[in-house]
């Protein structure tokens, strides 16, 4: 995998014909992209013609055919730019009407009954009730959440294992719903749990209050149990039992979404993509979501035994995506979440790229009331780096959080146009910079892209997805996944 991004410069570009773009050699093609998120694949010979300004108006590459817009329509030809089109595409990508933080991660306890090899959540033993969120702190947190002007609010319960502090999960849900009778927001809840403590009483309460379910399932039993050690029982069986209970309630008419299961990829998963996918599909889960490990928090300490290179993860991802696409061709309904996010950005111009969402669209609340720009920022704080801490539930008002200099610094650092390499990268219109990853791995929110693992991984993943988009049959499958984008 080459980190070089632009063959431009090797050839002389015609200043009147060639609009600003970035390019990347991808297999036998050159992928070109521009700032409004358009892309085109050219053969090396056509790219040379394009750069030389020798693509005229009637050229098949320049004009649209029934299926594909040409270079003119995509604003790759400088002397024929459509400024109304450029403006329409640029404004929504940059000057978004941000509504305020809508995703609020609430860590109701650091206690956990699992000891996962890759745990990044800085958990403590089940007896450590000193690491539970108190009812009073929970009340303050809910009050803060409702100070956000966002018309949509999502409260995510996380831990540790959040069900270990069940009274506070219940309280937050009930209190938020009571407050919302006056605020009238679109209020959603999500539970991220290992499901080991999920009994019928809890499921009924959660479904009745509109809480969605998400868990971790790392694949077949041996793999799952190796990664996720349950101190009080059988890890794989407990998560399957929880999933089946929720699926059964849904089948019986309960108003709830199909539960989601995130599959964390460790070194042990790398050669087992088909088995992992089969496990998830067999449970009736349509959404397949892979969670790559990042060397942040406790995962950093276990990196030697469970970590891998970015290239190894990209290879796994490519294998898994091939397999999922093959299943789709056989009529199995399933999709891969990361690819869906990418193709929404690539094919529909969706999603922002700058600034990223930390602080302005999401916030994280620790059990003790400390507030961070994002969940990963909280994890770094548990390791001793409190850079992303921006307030406390007992004394901060919502506007204090947004006015905190860390939020502005984090937003500035998330600009790929301020990043060496990123602003020249063909994937710049679709990618995102993660200041918290940079801080955690390289000691600076700006990071250093040439040896940045996130950058290497993202470039590899975009290589995989763009390669699939060049294959008409695979593209057809990927385009069909757009129906899942609002789920």
């Amino acid at each position: 995998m080459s980190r070089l991004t632009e063959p431009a410069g090797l050839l002389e570009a015609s200043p009147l014909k060639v609009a600003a773009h970035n390019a990347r050699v991808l297999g036998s093609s050159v992928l070109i992209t521009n700032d409004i998120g358009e892309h085109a694949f050219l053969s090396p010979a056509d790219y040379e013609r394009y750069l030389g300004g020798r693509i005229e108006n009637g050229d098949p590459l320049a004009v649209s055919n029934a299926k594909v817009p040409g270079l003119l329509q995509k604003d790759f030809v400088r002397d024929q730019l459509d400024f109304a089109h450029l403006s329409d595409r640029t404004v929504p990508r940059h000057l978004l009407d941000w509504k305020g933080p809508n995703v609020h991660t609430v860590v109701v306890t650091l206690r956990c009954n699992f000891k996962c090899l890759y745990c990044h959540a800085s958990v403590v033993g089940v007896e450590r009730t000193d690491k539970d969120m108190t009812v009073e702190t929970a009340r303050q947190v809910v009050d803060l959440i409702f100070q956000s002007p966002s018309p949509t609010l999502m409260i995510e319960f996380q831990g540790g294992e959040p069900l270990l502090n069940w009274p506070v999960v219940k309280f937050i849900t009930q209190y938020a719903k009571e407050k919302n009778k006056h605020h009238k927001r679109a209020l959603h809840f999500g539970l991220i749990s290992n499901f080991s403590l999920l009994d019928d009483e809890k499921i009924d309460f959660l479904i009745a209050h509109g809480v969605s379910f998400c868990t971790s399932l790392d694949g077949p039993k041996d793999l799952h149990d190796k990664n996720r050690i349950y101190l009080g029982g059988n890890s794989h069986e407990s998560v399957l039992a929880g999933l089946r209970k929720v699926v059964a309630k849904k089948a019986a008419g309960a108003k709830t979404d199909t539960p989601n299961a995130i599959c964390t990829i460790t070194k042990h998963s790398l050669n087992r993509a088909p088995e992992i996918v089969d496990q998830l599909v067999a449970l009736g889960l349509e959404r397949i979501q892979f969670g790559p490990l990042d060397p942040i928090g406790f995962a950093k300490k276990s990196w030697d035994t469970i970590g891998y290179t970015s290239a190894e993860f990209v290879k796994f991802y490519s294998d898994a995506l091939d397999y999922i696409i093959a299943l789709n061709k056989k009529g199995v309904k399933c999709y891969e979440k990361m690819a869906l996010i990418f193709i929404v950005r690539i094919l529909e111009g969706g999603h922002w790229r700058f600034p990223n969402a930390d602080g302005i669209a999401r916030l994280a609340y620790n059990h003790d009331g400390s507030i961070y720009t994002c969940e990963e920022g909280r994890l770094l704080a548990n390791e001793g780096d409190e850079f992303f801490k921006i307030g406390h539930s007992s004394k901060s008002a919502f506007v204090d959080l947004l006015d905190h200099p860390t939020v502005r610094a984090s937003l500035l650092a998330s600009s790929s146009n301020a990043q060496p390499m990123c602003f020249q990268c063909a994937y710049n219109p679709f990618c995102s910079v993660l200041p918290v990853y940079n801080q955690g791995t390289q000691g600076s929110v700006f990071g250093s892209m040439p040896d940045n693992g996130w950058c290497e991984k993202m470039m590899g993943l975009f290589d995989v997805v763009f390669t699939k988009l060049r294959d008409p049959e695979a593209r057809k499958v990927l385009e069909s996944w757009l129906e899942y984008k609002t789920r």
Partner: protein
Amino acid sequence: MKLVLTKKIYSKDALLIAAQVLSPKLNVYLDETKSSYEVTLEAKRKDVEAAKLQALAGEFANELLNQEYRFIVGRFNAKISSLIITQTLMAARGGETPAAPPAGESTPEFKKLVSDLVKNAEAEVARTMPKKIPHQGNPLPPVKEDAGV
């Protein structure tokens, strides 16, 4: 180890940031003449070999270049970045003056309801949770794969 860096290429700001980034591994001492900066690098660990120190110096030089280049790119896009961020922050905080809470939250009925919810939750905590224990220190490290668990 000593590096001599011309002021025509490197700025003091970039030097300071690079020193900060490498501070967990290196002590960095800075001096200057009219035309250059003189940077002395010293490994924080006492047992570092010459080859390792050379590698750390390379890391420092790469970071310095990265920061210098970032300044160039950042200056190029500073105005538009600043505009976008200001617009973003202002929109996300709900404008200059955030909206007041709904009047319904100030009523005695609502306050009573909240008070009851709090009491019930605290009673459930007392009834169902393990006994509260005092602060016990920092979280545990993760279990290693070979721990035989």
